[in-house]
């Protein structure tokens, strides 16, 4: 006999799902903000920093890209207390996910920075800019533009990967769904709804990345010729 779907008991717990969704948004947004900052900083150090710092950055990247996020969560939440660092589940989740994203985005940013021709750097230096000013004004925006699709793809993985924080009982959507499932026994309905919410979140986040991209890579509109007073026009415009 075909299974009769019944969403009613799950929907009755809607407030918990909403709360879980909000928590997932905050967990992801904070982790993304911190992780991207870490990634950009370490990428700059790996590309243009002192050798010892670049080596330290490379070690961090390898350590976090070659271990599972779940193990990183366990190490930080269950492991660190043995070294006297006791974090709440939510803080541990933000820390682990940020560090994980930091490692992956380091490599993405680094690819972008390395893709900018050396001649651009030389042009900046020849104008008297410092290396830091060259990075800030000459390199970063074109580099970001090259890697932007790869970066936003990674950020989507981070949003979805935040569900793993449920394993250390950080409050977020998957944990909320798991609790509802265990009490209603409506596994299919509960996780279908959770999946639908994740899809919606992904769309919203991607729309935000798109808008940020529009702003980051905007071009100034050329001045409209009608707005230029007649007298200020080029000499050849006057006969």
């Amino acid at each position: 006999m075909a299974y009769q779907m019944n969403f009613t008991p799950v929907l009755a717990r809607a407030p918990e799902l909403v709360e879980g969704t909000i928590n997932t948004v905050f967990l992801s947004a904070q982790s993304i903000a911190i992780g991207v900052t870490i990634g950009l900083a370490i990428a700059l150090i790996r590309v243009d920093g002192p050798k010892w710092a670049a080596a330290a950055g490379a070690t961090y990247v390898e350590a976090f890209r070659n271990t599972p996020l779940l193990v990183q969560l366990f190490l930080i939440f269950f492991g660190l207390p043995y070294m006297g660092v006791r974090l709440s589940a939510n803080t541990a989740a933000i820390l682990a996910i940020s560090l994980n994203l930091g490692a992956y985005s380091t490599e993405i940013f680094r690819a972008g920075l390395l893709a900018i021709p050396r001649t651009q750097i030389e042009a900046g230096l020849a104008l008297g800019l410092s290396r830091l000013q060259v990075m800030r004004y000459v390199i970063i925006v074109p580099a970001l533009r090259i890697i932007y699709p790869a970066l936003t793809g990674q950020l989507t993985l981070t949003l979805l990967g935040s569900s793993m924080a449920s394993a250390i009982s950080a409050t977020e959507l998957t944990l909320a769904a798991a609790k509802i499932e265990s009490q209603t026994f409506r596994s299919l309905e509960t996780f279908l709804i959770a999946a639908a919410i994740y899809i919606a979140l992904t769309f919203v986040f991607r729309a935000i990345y798109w808008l940020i991209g529009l702003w980051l890579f905007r071009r100034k509109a050329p001045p409209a010729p009608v707005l230029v007073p007649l007298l200020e026009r080029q000499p050849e415009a006057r006969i």
Partner: protein
Amino acid sequence: MPALRIEKLRKSYGALPVLKGIDLSVENGDVVAIIGRSGSGKSTMLRCINGLEPFQEGSIEVAGHRVEGSSSRLRELRKEVGMVFQGYNLFPHLNVADNITLAPRVVKGVPRAECDALVQQVLSRVGLEEKAGAYPDELSGGQQQRVAIARSLAMKPKVMLFDEVTSALDPELTGEVLKTIAELAEAGMTMVLVTHEMSFARRVATRTVFMHEGRVWEEGLSETFFSSPQTPELQSFIAPNLN
């Protein structure tokens, strides 16, 4: 005091010597063309002058600055020594006006209010007043190179270095860039140009220098330099251009 004085300059890439003891002096207002075969060291020498390329021995003094020491000292030097590259190297994400004003604003602290006038002033010198709002990819190669020259001029340099600035351009566009450089020469700008344009060197440069195997092989006033080359190497180098 000369605008540029190079003494006993030596540079090697690992075991490969590129510059084997260069001596060269350029007076204020001089236009010096550097010619020579690929690999003769002319671009390397030019890049040593503003410290883009480190060197092992000898000394360079340009616009009153010695090329040495910390990056902050090099920055002081680069404020007064402009450089234009073969590949234009405009910043693709900035429009012409922002390309021009970036260094004046960031390096010299020129206030935004003065930037429009500065942009118009330098663009008029390269004949591109109407392109302030354009982006580099909307310009032809020749226009991009002229903007690059304007960008350099905006720093009000005492000396300008040109590194094969027309080598990436077809003959038609080469003409408009050379015209701009000739006008700068007429206005009294001190310039050192690495170039393959023999007739331009002959016409515009006060002096021409022939580099060969990492040395200054022959130099002289441009008028006599081309009409009566002394060394067989220079004779064979310029022979194809005289027909």
